[in-house]
């Protein structure tokens, strides 16, 4: 997760470089550190540095890291020739390297030759069966080919060994949600909450999944998790506010006739509605009418 300061720094550098103010190398280093996906810009500025022999020699040993970064960005933008050139340069310098082997595999993937890429990855895995990145690339390949169940299987096998990798859990959760396997997705989100309990995003998505599953208990739990998201974000998360309103009305519907169990937070619903109205008034006052009518229909 990228923090707020890092995000502002990244945007600032991006603006600076876009307007010709130099600082391309810092921008590229920051992109690499934060692992954000800005492939077009990386490609443009990386190539400008690499094609200028003076700037290239000024980098020293970092030149090869830049080659790798530009190669991956080129593959992302489908400039396969650029990628091939970069990989060739890297291969000349590091002939027996596993990292370059991995880049070769990625190039085959980008070209669409899945079988050869699979062969390349398997041979790399034989040498080093515990290479996390290659395992993940195979999952990505299965997903790109549309073989979602294969992707799930490989991802599960990966997680059996590397169960502390929260990025993998997140990927698995999103795949499950796309397949509407909500119970499994809920499990994955629980893992994410366990590993990083203070990230509001996971609470929010977990609440979404619980709300979608339905049933009184799940709805009440979902309401609690929407509340925790609100607490973690200081009430600014619109989706969570909506979630509270929807949950309360859904609970009321499901438990029609039974005595209401809302002793814990009777005011939460009205508070959330008020907060939403205030937010809409500030940011999208033309839609306020829609909001109030929607909320009113929920209350009934």
């Amino acid at each position, binding site marked *: 997760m990228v923090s707020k300061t890092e995000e502002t720094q990244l945007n600032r550098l991006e603006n600076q470089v876009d307007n010709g103010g130099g600082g391309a190398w810092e921008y590229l280093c920051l992109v690499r550190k934060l692992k954000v996906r800005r492939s077009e810009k990386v490609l443009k500025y990386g190539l400008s540095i690499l094609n200028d022999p003076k700037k290239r020699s000024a980098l020293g040993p970092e030149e090869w890291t830049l080659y790798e970064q530009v190669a991956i960005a080129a593959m992302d933008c489908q400039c396969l020739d650029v990628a091939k050139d970069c990989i060739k340069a890297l291969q000349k310098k590091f002939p027996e390297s596993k990292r370059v082997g991995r880049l070769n595999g990625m190039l085959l993937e980008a070209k669409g030759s899945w079988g050869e890429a699979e062969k390349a990855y398997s041979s790399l895995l034989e040498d*080093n*069966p*515990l290479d996390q990145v290659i395992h993940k690339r195979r999952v990505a390949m299965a997903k790109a080919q549309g073989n979602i169940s294969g992707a799930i299987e490989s991802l599960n096998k990966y997680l*059996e*060994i*590397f*169960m*502390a*990798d929260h990025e993998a859990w997140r990927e698995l959760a999103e795949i499950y949600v796309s397949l509407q396997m909500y119970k499994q997705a809920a*499990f994955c989100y*629980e*893992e994410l*909450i*366990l*590993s990083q*309990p203070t990230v509001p995003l996971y609470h929010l998505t977990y609440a979404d999944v619980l709300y979608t599953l339905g049933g009184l208990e799940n709805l009440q*739990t979902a*309401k*609690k*998790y*929407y*509340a*925790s998201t*609100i*607490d973690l974000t*200081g*009430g*600014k998360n619109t989706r969570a506010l909506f979630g*509270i309103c929807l949950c309360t009305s859904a609970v009321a519907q499901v438990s029609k006739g039974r005595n209401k169990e809302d002793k*814990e*937070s009777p*005011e*939460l619903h009205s*508070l*959330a509605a*008020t*907060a939403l109205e*205030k937010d809409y008034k500030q940011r999208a006052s033309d839609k306020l009418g829609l909001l109030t009518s929607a909320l009113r229909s929920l209350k009934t």
Partner: protein
Amino acid sequence: MAEDLVLDTAIRDWVLIPLSVVMVLIGILRYFVSKLMLSSQLPDPKIVKEGQVIVRARNLRAAANFIPPKSFRSRRVYFSNEENGLLFVPKGQAQNPQAQMFSDPNMAMDMMKKNLSMIIPQTLTFAWVNFFFSGFVAAKIPFPLTQRFRSMLQNGIDLSTVDVSYVSSRSWYFLNLFGLRGLFSLILGEENATDDTQRMMQMSGFGFDPSKSLGAEKDGLDIVQHEWALPKFEHRAEAALKKLIK
């Protein structure tokens, strides 16, 4: 008798300083040699998996109050049940880690190399110190010591009346051996091969012991009482929203 011996400054110039300089140089040499001899150790998949299991179990313990009680309980059973719980190590299987380490040829070779690189320079330097720098008083320790240290610190000096604070160069060697660790971590950065004391401690208690840490995690997990924190959050959310609206 506590008389004040006047020590020749030549001792300081020709014994203490050269000895320290030599030890620093030897340390740097060992660092580079160890870098050259570094064999890339392939991580054992079982050990990697156990490490990850421990991280996951620890996360579960730490954040247990954030997930619903049913999920927590099912996870706890998954980890610590008798048949195939991840953390459960049946008594018979808890291998003696010592035997395990010696049966793995790679690890044994690595340990041998590390031990050798530590023992040989130490022995050589010690022999050199004894040969050249024995038989005279090298320094005076600023604090008084008991008589029991006499045999260790005053080996070349055969006078029994000399105060124990006056020591031979052997003690200066030992002082340097343990004291230069800080200097090395400044010069060479962390994780240098000269960290003898750490290695010696590791020899006595075999470092990474997976079965014991698994058992420890299991016990920790069994103890945890699940107290679902989420209902509290509803109140806090209320308060937060109230503040926001005001």
